[in-house]
């Protein structure tokens, strides 16, 4: 080993749901060194454990719930964990990150990662307590929605227990069902809730641990002092203050002004101001936070739920043509209760609406009109998706419904690699953003890179500092945008492995938040791990390459790193972005250059030399099967 990892703990429980046996291992230090934790170690385990040709909803799929190295330590915003499996929605790498209070409690209960294998005969819950996982009857919770499940679990396992669970959508194997932490935090993307449902697991409850189950901190005084310094540093940041004031909806006005709000399935690109942050805020009773958070960007709304995020108000608002503020927030609450990914829900519904309005599908398939701008219809559709009833049963298949919806080439679906796009931003204007959703390892998703700093018109020297070279300051320019995407993808893979929220990550909304030097210090003071900044950058590259290797194995090649047809063919209709679209040749050039700096082959595969190198690292995992 070249890096001393100190006390970084990766206590992993393998739960074989078929046989009912539970085994434990401390992840081999050689592998922890290379991937640190969270998303990184989850990817390593999935790559190692998933058998070839697995059906994502079969017992052979492997569902991994893993915390980051710093999760639950009191480091700023260290509430994150990842849920990882082969995605039933996209058929490729499925990985979703969430906050809330679960990760902290899981680690305090003495376990850092739970790997679910096989399938239980009957509905069960997993209970983690005092360093052990037990499989308990979950029949009484089956059929309950997310809020009811969380309340019932608190009642049964104590108010200080924390749980992740699925709602009715996960039970019914809706391919975009999510895993919920609390009532609003979602490990949303890629249908991880359907995988959990396919294993008959309703919830994982962290109930607490003994003193000896806690994490061992290398330099307690130094660590506390560092955390306090970082808290003060972050709270001085303007973006942290603004996010804490109104949350992510603040981005709505910016994108809307730009003319880049996905509206009515991206047929349009600007919408009503009824979804502006200030107006949303009239429906908010309080801003609340995840564990150890210095930002507090989550809303508690006055319609009996939490949220909404920027993503939700657009995907279930503008994108469905629904402008009424209260109605949009109620749709958010409904999707959360049912355990649905709001991004895919909005993307799939709007797809069907456009197809219906264009006459590509009709009442014989839908059973009645499916039109934009109808709140009651949206409620009915969302419920029918979660329960897999009627037309909802077809929509529950997500992008796989293409044949049945008479749009076999998905010409009208805003998705990449079978995953509907999450970010409300129409990416035809910001070219780096377009490349980012095309290369993201889980499909069309903004939280793998979200390269938007360039719209702030930052000074060149600051850009040089962030990207390591000169990059174009013009968002509509294609040149050098591969460097922008590459840089963001790298740091986000690292922060997901460390278990800290992207909202305080360098590059997410500001160039001044936490970066490698801070991560290096945190890992040192907490665990005595000695990573240099360069070594942390290597970890990031490794995680991105490993996820690509997984996807290559699932058949992903250059042809899949592309964009929805509309982004190439139709110019944007409004605002500053009017007239912009993605040029196919320029996009190809950008992708060529991206592969080059990633050192991947021209066909989008990882080189054999790199595969051999990473295979050798992952081989150190003991694992329970190969």
């Amino acid at each position, binding site marked *: 080993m070249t890096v001393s990892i100190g006390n970084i703990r990766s206590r992993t429980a393998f739960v074989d749901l078929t046989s009912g046996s539970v085994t434990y291992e401390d992840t081999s230090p050689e592998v922890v060194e290379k991937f640190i934790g969270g998303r990184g170690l989850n990817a390593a385990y999935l790559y190692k454990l998933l058998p070839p040709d697995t059906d994502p909803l079969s017992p052979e799929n492997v569902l991994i719930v893993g915390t980051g190295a710093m999760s*639950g*330590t*009191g480091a700023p915003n260290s509430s994150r964990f990842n849920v990882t499996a082969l995605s039933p929605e996209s058929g490729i790498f499925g990985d979703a990150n969430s906050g809330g*209070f679960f990760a*902290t*409690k899981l*680690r*305090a209960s003495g376990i850092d990662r739970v790997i679910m294998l096989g399938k239980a005969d009957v509905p069960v819950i997993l209970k983690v307590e005092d360093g052990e996982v037990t499989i308990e009857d979950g029949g009484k919770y089956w059929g309950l929605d997310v809020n009811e499940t969380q309340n019932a679990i608190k009642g049964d396992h104590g108010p*200080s227990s924390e749980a992740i669970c699925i709602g009715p959508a996960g039970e019914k194997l809706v391919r975009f069902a999510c895993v919920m932490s609390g009532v609003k935090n979602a490990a949303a993307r890629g249908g991880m809730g359907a995988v959990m449902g396919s294993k008959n697991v309703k919830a994982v409850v962290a109930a*607490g*641990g*003994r*003193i000896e189950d*806690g*994490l*061992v*901190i290398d330099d*307690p005084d130094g660590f*506390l002092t560092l*955390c*306090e310094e970082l*808290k003060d540093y972050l*709270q001085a940041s303007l973006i942290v203050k603004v996010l804490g004031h109104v949350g992510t909806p603040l981005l709505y006005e910016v994108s809307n002004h730009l003319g880049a709000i996905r509206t009515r399935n991206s047929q349009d690109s600007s919408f009503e101001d009824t979804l502006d942050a200030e107006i949303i805020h009239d429906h908010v*009773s*309080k*801003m*609340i*936070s*995840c*564990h*150890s*958070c*210095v930002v*507090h960007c989550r809303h*508690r709304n006055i319609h009996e739920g939490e949220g909404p995020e920027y993503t939700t108000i657009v995907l279930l608002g503008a994108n469905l043509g629904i402008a009424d503020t209260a109605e949009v927030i109620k749709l958010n609450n409904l999707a959360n209760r049912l355990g649905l990914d709001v991004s895919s829900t909005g993307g799939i519904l709007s797809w069907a609406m456009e197809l219906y309005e264009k006459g590509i599908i009709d009442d014989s398939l839908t059973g009645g009109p499916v039109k934009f701008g109808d709140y009651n219809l949206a409620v009915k559709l969302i419920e029918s998706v979660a329960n897999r009833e009627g037309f909802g049963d077809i929509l529950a298949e997500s992008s796989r419904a293409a044949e049945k919806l008479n749009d076999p080439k998905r010409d009208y679906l805003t998705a990449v690699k079978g995953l509907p796009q999450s970010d409300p931003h129409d990416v035809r204007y910001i070219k780096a953003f377009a490349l980012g959703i095309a290369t993201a390892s889980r499909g069309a998703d903004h939280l793998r890179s979200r390269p938007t700093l360039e719209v702030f018109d930052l000074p060149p020297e600051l850009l040089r500092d962030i990207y390591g070279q000169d990059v174009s300051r013009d968002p509509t320019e294609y040149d050098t945008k591969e460097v922008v995407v590459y840089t963001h993808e790298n740091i986000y893979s690292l922060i997901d492995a460390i278990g800290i929220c992207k909202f305080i990550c360098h590059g997410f909304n500001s160039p001044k938040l936490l970066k490698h030097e801070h991560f290096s210090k945190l890992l040192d003071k907490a665990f005595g791990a000695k990573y240099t900044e360069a070594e942390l950058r290597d970890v990031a590259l490794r995680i991105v390459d490993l996820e690509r290797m997984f996807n290559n194995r699932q058949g992903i090649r250059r042809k899949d790193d592309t964009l929805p047809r509309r982004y190439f063919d139709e110019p944007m209709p409004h605002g500053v972005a009017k007239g912009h679209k993605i040029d196919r040749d320029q996009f190809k050039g950008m992708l060529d250059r991206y592969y080059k700096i990633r050192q991947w082959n021209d066909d989008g595969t990882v080189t054999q030399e790199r595969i051999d190198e990473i295979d050798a690292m992952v081989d150190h995992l003991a694992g329970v099967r190969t």
Partner: protein
Amino acid sequence: MKQLIIKPKLCTNCHICELACSFKHSMEFDLAHSRVKTIFHAEDDLTVPEICLQCIDPSCMKGCPTGALYLDDRINCIRVNYDSCIGCLSCVVSCPFGNMLQDRSKPGHVYKCDLCDGDPVCARFCPTGALTYVEIEPLTGSVEMELEKVEAEVG
């Protein structure tokens, strides 16, 4: 003299005070070992950080049969003398606020907020000002007037 000030309206329920407290006192990141507990009251949409108020007329002290609780007047803090404590838990049942706690892994072992000996870590970590440790001015007006001042401050 400094005093721990609680402003529930500013609390966002992030639990960092509990985590920091637990770590500072038991080297463990578990809310179950914290001297401060954030309690969410759904009906009022309010999260209250509950922590020893260092009462002027402390019920816990009155309930103690051995005099094991004493006032540390350097920092105005009620503390436990473990040499005298017999583990009868009278103080736990005496405190009307539930701020005297017992260790579930060590029967009869009670603990409470010790103000971190004059530098409470909960206040240092609180990101919103819901918990602060500050010099306080003596009350000048009526209780109602003082409350109005606080209301005006936290909204």
